[in-house]
């Protein structure tokens, strides 16, 4: 083989391993750890298998890459168990894996236990703050450094939390299993919450201006698709995917050509991803047909109300308010209360909306919540209370870390000093 050809083979092999890694990583980890619950060992063995693939596949990619990787990985696991003399039980287990792999020499025969893995990652016995990171690592193979960057923490601290969670799964015997029917509802909300967290933690920087911080929205979408695909009869799983697709469809419209922040109601609908919105709408219709409403379906429906602007219609604020009312009965989230007030402002005026804003004294979280102050400032400005509006904008600006949003808020603050309602 000449050099060029060899280079080509290497590149092909690299692409093939990357493709399998993305598509199959979680499936292989889940399979290897299903009985032992030893995620760390499964990940290590799989990392070795991928390294072997990079070396071997240039000489010819296997017909069943997943089975190939599993064969190498279980060999590593058996060697490891022998070296550590971790007892007959471990060896027996890996031997069992070996038999399973031999039986499943065709990729299609390898069972997909990723859903069980997601339920283990979000088990209530594991610290809720590590649910999303753990899922991103074990299902998608992201490294601690990348996850840490999205969750604004140090790689060392994130790595420690991930190791601790995996130790707990193994040592406390947390099963990799899809819960029984009666438990499924509550446990599923844990899975969906973690996916939502993975999405929103990578979401606040749509322009990608902050290059040091990684964006995990694509990864979260992958997880949401996986959950919706594996649980097609769970309307909330479909609702979450619809909700994330709606949000993702608008990612380019959140900044104008100058890189300035554009609020939802002023976004150029031509810059929304139409195909993605259509997919979200179809998912939401499928979810609603099942007749079990929930938080994510309501949130997706709200996005859908805003998306109607695509057809040239205005936002139906009456429908929006009804949806916010329904959401408010399900959650005491300040985000919902604040957005509900904005809908009220459209229907009954800014003063009425101010009266409905949650009480700062009753909820200490609001004091340092930027959207609360930005909304309050906006409503005050619209009510003609320019001085109070400026003061509220000042607090919002102080709480915001994104420069584009800060610029936007400063613009609004200036406008209420000079604008027609800026009486003093």
């Amino acid at each position, binding site marked *: 083989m000449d050099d060029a050809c060899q280079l080509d083979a290497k590149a092909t092999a690299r692409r093939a391993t990357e493709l399998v890694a993305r598509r199959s990583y979680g499936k292989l980890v889940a399979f290897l750890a299903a009985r032992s619950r030893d995620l760390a060992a499964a990940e290590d063995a799989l990392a070795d298998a991928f390294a072997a693939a990079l070396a071997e596949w240039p000489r010819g990619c296997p017909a069943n890459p997943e089975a190939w990787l599993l064969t190498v990985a279980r060999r590593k696991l058996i060697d490891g168990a022998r070296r550590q003399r971790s*007892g007959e039980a471990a060896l027996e287990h890996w031997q069992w894996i070996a038999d399973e792999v031999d039986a499943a020499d065709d990729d299609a025969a390898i069972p997909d236990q990723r859903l069980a893995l997601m339920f283990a990652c979000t*088990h209530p*016995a594991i610290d809720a703050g590590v649910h999303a990171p753990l899922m991103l690592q074990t299902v998608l193979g992201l490294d601690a450094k990348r996850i840490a960057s999205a969750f604004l923490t140090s790689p060392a601290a994130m790595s420690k939390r991930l190791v601790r969670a995996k130790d707990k799964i193994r*040592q*406390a*015997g947390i*099963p990799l*299993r899809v*819960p029984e029917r009666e438990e499924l509802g509550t446990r599923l909300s844990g899975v969906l919450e973690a996916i939502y967290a993975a999405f929103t933690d990578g979401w606040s920087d749509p322009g990608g201006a902050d290059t040091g911080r990684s964006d995990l929205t694509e990864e979260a979408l992958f997880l949401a698709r996986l959950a919706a695909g594996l649980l097609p009869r769970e309307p909330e799983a479909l609702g979450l995917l619809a909700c994330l697709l709606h949000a993702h469809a608008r990612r380019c419209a959140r900044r104008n050509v100058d890189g300035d922040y554009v609020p939802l109601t002023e976004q150029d609908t031509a810059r929304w991803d139409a195909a993605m919105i259509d997919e979200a709408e179809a998912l939401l219709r499928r979810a609603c047909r099942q007749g079990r409403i929930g938080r994510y379906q309501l949130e997706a429906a709200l996005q859908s109300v805003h998306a109607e602007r695509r057809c040239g219609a205005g936002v139906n604020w009456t429908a929006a308010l009804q949806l916010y009312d329904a959401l408010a009965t399900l959650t005491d989230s300040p985000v919902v209360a604040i957005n509900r007030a904005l809908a009220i402002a459209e229907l009954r005026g800014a003063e009425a909306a101010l009266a409905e804003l949650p009480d700062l004294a009753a909820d200490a979280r609001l004091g340092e919540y930027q959207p609360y102050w930005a909304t309050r400032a906006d409503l005050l400005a619209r009510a003609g209370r320019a001085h109070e509006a400026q003061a509220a904008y000042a607090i919002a600006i102080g709480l915001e870390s994104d420069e584009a949003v800060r610029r936007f808020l400063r613009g609004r603050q200036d406008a209420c000093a000079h604008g027609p309602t800026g009486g003093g």
Partner: protein
Amino acid sequence: MQYLLLLYSNEKAWENLSEKDQEEGAAAYGAYTEALAQAGALVGGNRLRPTDTATRVSVADGKPQVLDGPYADSKEQLGGYYLIEAADLDAAIAWAARCPGAYHGIIEVRPIWPMD
């Protein structure tokens, strides 16, 4: 796997119960223990005398130090334990949730770390 269920509750509350309520409580534990045994999950278990009877021992400079009273002063005290056999943490949690102690206290579920 084996798990130790540690039953924490306010021991004073138990002492303040009427005799009839205490009998009912004891019967509930009896039924629970029987259910564990029937399922083949019971390895061992017992109640503990109140913390008034506790003695702390440690060795300093080669000499045993003996003190009266429990190790930690808290609202809830360790009042008993069950050692159970369960397939995984979910099965152990299910047993803990059925324990009468979970209704008037906290059950801590700890996996046994076998000695090789």
